[in-house]
């Protein structure tokens, strides 16, 4: 557009989403982890008729996975 200035030189192009994006990413990993593996566990439950055990294991696994993802992707870069 007319009168458009040059882009300022500020703004670090990091690989980690800055600010609010980071918070939402972390939250979505933690919830998605529980949901995905909880659901897989629930399917296993239905299949093997182990009332609820597999769902529980799935949710715990999913939590662990979510935490690993948050640490790996949002933690201090190596």
């Amino acid at each position, binding site marked *: 557009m007319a009168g458009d200035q040059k*882009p*300022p030189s500020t*703004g670090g192009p990091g690989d980690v989403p800055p600010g609010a*994006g980071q918070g*939402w990413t972390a939250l979505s990993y933690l919830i998605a*982890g529980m949901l995905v593996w909880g659901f897989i566990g629930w399917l296993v439950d239905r299949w093997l008729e182990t009332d609820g055990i597999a769902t529980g294991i799935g949710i715990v696994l999913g939590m662990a996975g979510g935490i690993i993802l948050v640490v790996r992707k949002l933690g201090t870069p190596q």
Partner: protein
Amino acid sequence: MFGQANVLAQGAANFPPSVEDFYLPSILPWGAHNSYWFTKITFMVWLAVGILILFFLLSYRNPQLVPTKKQWFAESIYGFVRNNIAVDMIGHQGVRFAPYFTTLFCFVLLTNFFAIVPFFQISPNSHIAFPAFLALISYVLFNYVGIRHHGFVKYFKNSLIPPAPWYILPLLIPIEAFSTFLVRPFSLAVRLFANMFAGHMLLLVFTLGGFAMLNATGLLAPVSVLSWLMTVALTFLEFLVICLQAYVFTVLTASYVQGALAEEH
């Protein structure tokens, strides 16, 4: 269009407000209850589009070196989105996306703002269809940008395979896939929709609740007044939510685009 005001004037508001209150009578076949082709919501969306197009066209039509008031206003909105959202989140190549983010930000802000404008008093975004479509556009945008930047295979490899030893990858890949390709558009749409829906509901409860109490017995009149004062206070809160949600929607879209453009994690 003045459905709500009429309902209040007739004192015929049924108190616990329900989802029905979000489906306003149609405008074009005037007052029809089963026709949704042209309702107040439709009107507001077109109005918002029209206002934005006119505003930006008029304020940039004859740009001055020393900006006029209108030009200054338009430039500061664009400058805010470009510097504080696009460049901040994506880096210097974010400038390419600044026009879209500005449009998105202004559109969401304006349609949200209708929630507290007298006689409009409902936001189109309190119907899931509008946030859902905006989220769909963001979804297509970040995937398209990612695929174009990296190529199809590399983009999906980038976004599905996190930096981790191979033996935990089977645990992590489903989570990544779910959170990137399913949760993102869903949460984007639902966050905006739920905030605007809840805001409208809250205002309805306090306004109509005041009338309901007044109709029940005159003794409750002071409580009715308190309830209406709460409506005023909540309107200010609603204003905060309106601005915040427009900002959050744009920032998250920018953050997804940034994620799609990022090199190896």
